[in-house]
């Protein structure tokens, strides 16, 4: 092939340009730490990266839901634990009050304490987390239980049977609340009866009340059991989700982060080629026959 003078410089410019483009791409990978700048860099990888990012955002949201569910369940557990203690004390008092050796004053003292415990039980039934009543169903903005002094003493329920449903994993929902109407009225009735029987110094009736206090205790313990089981399930979901997120993070990094060893090696090789092209090209375009004619 006949080589004209311009071909040399044209070829040099084209090749230098191509070298620089490759070098620029590699240096950008190195300085940004990202392998993917735009969709055409690697369309399949960009598609995967976007899906992983979405999965990660979803996973983080599940973790956030799980955390707020756990906060709620812990508040439930705390309130139910207090109720248990409360009812256990009531049971002790009932056993004491059912003893025939007590005189009327002694019975009245116990009745006063049971009355306190009844009021405490109602306030526990109105317990809240950041203003949201735990046992009000979905009407969480107002106290679900109201104590009417009477006589006769009654406790009314103003909440509803609504369920709080949370999604803790894709398509997995849990109900995290127990409406107070399902287990607390039995306790209130048992306490009211016990107090009234103590006031009346009817020790036989007081002894009979022990079984209804036991039943009320059983109801609270069953609720605690439910909350505990649910907490375990939600915690298991948390562990799983945390593991999954770490895994997705790793996959995402594999797809979009620069492989530094590879990129540095490439950059060095490309720089060498570029320098060699510069050196050879600079000499080739300078010389001509005219340098040697006298």
């Amino acid at each position, binding site marked *: *092939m*006949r*080589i*004209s*003078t*311009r*071909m040399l410089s*044209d*070829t040099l410019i*084209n090749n230098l340009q191509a070298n620089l483009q490759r070098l620029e791409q590699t240096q950008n990978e190195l300085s940004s730490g990202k392998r*993917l700048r*735009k*969709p*055409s*860099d*690697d*369309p*399949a990888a*960009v*598609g995967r*990266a*976007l*899906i992983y*990012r*979405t999965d990660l*955002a*979803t996973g*983080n*949201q*599940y973790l*956030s*839901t799980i955390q*707020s*569910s756990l906060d709620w369940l812990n508040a439930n557990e705390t309130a139910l634990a207090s109720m248990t203690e409360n009812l256990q004390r009531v049971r002790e008092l009932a056993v004491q009050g059912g003893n025939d050796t007590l005189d009327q004053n002694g019975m009245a003292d116990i009745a006063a304490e049971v009355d306190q415990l009844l009021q405490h039980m109602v306030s526990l039934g109105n317990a809240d987390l950041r*203003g*949201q009543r735990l046992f*009000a*169903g*979905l*009407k*969480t*903005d107002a106290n679900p239980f109201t104590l009417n002094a009477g006589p006769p003493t009654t406790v009314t329920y103003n909440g*509803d049977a*609504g369920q*709080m*449903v*949370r*999604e803790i994993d*894709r*398509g997995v*929902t849990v109900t995290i609340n127990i409406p107070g109407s399902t287990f607390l009225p039995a306790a209130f009735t048992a306490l009211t009866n016990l107090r009234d029987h103590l006031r009346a110094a009817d020790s036989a009736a007081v002894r009979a009340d022990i079984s209804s206090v036991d039943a009320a205790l059983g109801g609270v313990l069953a609720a605690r059991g439910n909350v505990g089981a649910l907490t375990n399930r939600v915690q298991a979901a948390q562990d799983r989700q945390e593991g999954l997120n770490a895994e997705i993070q790793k996959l995402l990094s594999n797809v*979009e982060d620069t492989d530094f060893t590879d990129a540095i090696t490439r950059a060095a090789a490309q720089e060498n080629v570029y320098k060699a092209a510069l050196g050879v090209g600079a000499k080739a375009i300078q010389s*001509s*026959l*005219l340098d040697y*004619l006298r």
Partner: protein
Amino acid sequence: MSGAFFGLDLALRALQDQQTVIDITNHNVANANTPGFSRQTAALGTTTPYTLPGTNRSPQPGQIGTGVSVEAIQRARDVFTDLQYRTESSTLERAKSLQDSLEQVEVTLNEPSDTGLSAQLAKFFPAWQELVNNPTEDAVRATLVQQSATLATSFNKTSQQLTALQKNLDDQVGVNVAQINSLANQIAAINRQIVQVEVTGDHANDFRDRRDLLLDQLSELIGITVQDNANGSINVSIGSHALIQNQTVDQLTTTLTAPGGFREVRFASDSSLVSLNGGKVQGEILARDQYIAGYLAKLDQVAGDLITAVNALHTTGYGLDGVSGRPFFSGSDAATMAVDPAIAADPRRVAAASAAGQPANSAVALQIAQLRHTLSPTPEGAYTALVSTLGVDSAAVRDEVANQTGLVQLLDRRRQSTSGVSLDEEAVNLVRFQRAYEAAARLITANDEMLDKLINETGRVGR
């Protein structure tokens, strides 16, 4: 025997012709870097030999040569490579212009990033989940409305930018059509000059170079076919329709597809649509009408599906004020999407509940949050598919540009190989022709001395 002055005449012609050849070398060197220049060579030939007359036969053994003449000045040009070059360069320019547009779309979408639409979509559903968890908290509601407004703005902006890109391409089509007309007029004018020169039998080398350069430029803008005429002029067609016939041009013009629509390229004479085959203009129209229009349609689909699905659920729900039936989004596509003004004015109106009077009820919010995986296709999936399509399109065009650039460079090298000036070659020629010139001058001296002998020193016997 030849005449006494025969040698003097011959040497003079040799001197003149070597000088002409040196002039050609000058011209080549001067234009070594002129775009489109083809190096020129002199076709040297011997002049008609002379048979000396005699009574019986020539008194000499044969014909005697009468010297040299420059028969033609020719340009070194490979016409077949020109044809290939223009076809491939049309394809390259189409691909390049497409690549430019698609790269701009990639910049517009800005994926993958923490700020693109994909990231906004990824934050949209978690904001609903957060509302599921805390339906009574005003801050959570405000965050949801804010996040939704940001998402809507992202859709609006992306749509606007893609539309602006289409408009920009449309303007470029107009500019390039004007450029095509200007080039066509110049070619027709040069056609006239070439015919005028070549009717006398000369070669219009430099005019032809200039015309070839204009044809190169024209073929970058639009795919053409060129046909030579016997008188030296050319005809240029686009598809099967003539653009230039000898010295007349059928100008191109643009009409709008609809009021406010995009430009279409037509011939002025019969308003027929120009059939595009390669060239920048085709790349611009393809990007405008197929690629970007396709992305916009998909973007509208994603936005429209999301608006419809969210609103269908939201209208069944109740806000904290107990009112039902409100839409969450207004608008119907990417360009018009916005958070409904009533919702934006008071986030307590977001209808999270499935019944009135239950502040902790977030059943509808949960259904909306679950759209992330119950919608088919999912909004994020559909948008990712759009990004992937763009990536594949852009990568394919990038590869085509790379391949086609290689091919065009190769063809250009082939043209250069034939037509390009080699300074080394010209230097050698210069030495060669200079020596010949010097020798011709010496011939004149020799003849002069011979004549001097004959005229001044002959016939002086006995003086």
